[in-house]
């Protein structure tokens, strides 16, 4: 009968206990969903830049929520003494938030830490997170006429969402970097921090 349910219905989603985050779905389910996201956005735009921007916006929403989720989850480490728990501490330093993105966020979302985190050589405000093959690009091949389009813009959006919500505004883009001896190019997420972040970092010493 309709309404006969064994599950306790919470009136408010915020009252529902936070899950451990160990649930999984198959990679193909995610890949299908992501391909529909890209295909839908392709119908809504006229050019590549607009498509990348829309994917980034979608990723931004994911990133902002991801940060909140991870922070809440770390706080819920009930039985650890305060000084041992990672939670209750907000990242305020540049390297801190970068390593949070590179390790924790990547591990939670993609199952592994990012391949590398580098500081840009040309500019002070640039950092790069590199990945041999982004999860979202696994089953995607870009036709030649789409030029430098990279579906990793979605991941760039996620990173921007995390950084922005953590108080580190930045411009984040995804680029393909061809590698010697490898068929598929590497993907680099380029993070360019805003002026205010660098000034604050300098002030903090």
């Amino acid at each position, binding site marked *: 009968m309709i309404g006969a*349910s064994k599950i306790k219905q919470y*009136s*408010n989603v915020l009252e529902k206990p936070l899950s451990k985050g160990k649930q999984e779905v198959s990679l193909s389910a*995610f890949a299908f969903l*992501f391909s529909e996201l890209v295909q839908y956005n392709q119908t809504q735009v006229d050019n590549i830049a607009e498509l990348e921007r829309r994917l980034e916006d979608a990723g931004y*929403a*994911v990133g902002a*929520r991801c940060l909140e989720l991870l922070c809440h989850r770390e706080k819920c480490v009930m039985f650890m003494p305060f000084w041992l728990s990672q939670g209750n501490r907000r990242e305020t330093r540049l390297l801190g938030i970068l390593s949070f993105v590179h390790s924790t966020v990547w591990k939670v979302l993609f199952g592994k830490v990012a391949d590398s985190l580098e500081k840009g050589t040309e500019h002070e405000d640039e950092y790069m997170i590199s990945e041999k093959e982004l999860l979202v690009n696994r089953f995607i091949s870009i036709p030649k006429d789409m030029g430098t389009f990279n579906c990793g813009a979605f991941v760039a959006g996620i990173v921007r969402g995390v950084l922005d919500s953590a108080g580190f505004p930045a411009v984040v883009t995804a680029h393909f970097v061809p590698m010697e001896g490898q068929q598929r190019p590497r993907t680099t997420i380029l993070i360019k921090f805003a002026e205010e972040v660098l000034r604050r970092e300098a002030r903090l010493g």
Partner: protein
Amino acid sequence: MAPAGPRSGDAIFASVERVNAELFTLTYGAIVRQLLTDLEEVDEVNKQLDQMGYNIGIRLVDEFLAKSNVSRCVDFKETAEVSAKVGFKMFLGVGASVTNWDAEGTCCSIVLEDNPLVDFVELPDTCQGLYYCNVLSGVIRGALEMVSVCPPMPLSPSLFIVFLGLLTSLPCLFDVYICSLELPF
């Protein structure tokens, strides 16, 4: 060599590559949000979600058939059972159950106890009438159409209204009403 028998949903799920369900959940949320911003009308969004699900379903069924090794189902009851037990399990990692059979055996409900799509989601008042999980209806419709079970009308997520409308937060319970009126069996 004897052909391999059909594999259980759990076994297949354990053998495929998996990703964190939260990435999946949040990506789906981003899609629905984008649709709501672009289309504004809740009915349009429902249609678009169904269409997206349909596009997924027509390709997903190939993977399903390849990985699960099921033999041809003899009747609709078996089709529903296999979709619920094997199909949902191998893609979403959660089993579903089939209930609410009608007298002729052409209509049923597939119930998901634990739907990864609706984690953390709460529908605001402006979105009443939104079938948040409509993509799942589309997937089933697409998949069934590809294997020649042709619903003459789009799958009716009418029971969504009952469950989703009653609750401002999305339930762990998800209902799909499959009305398959033309059975080639």
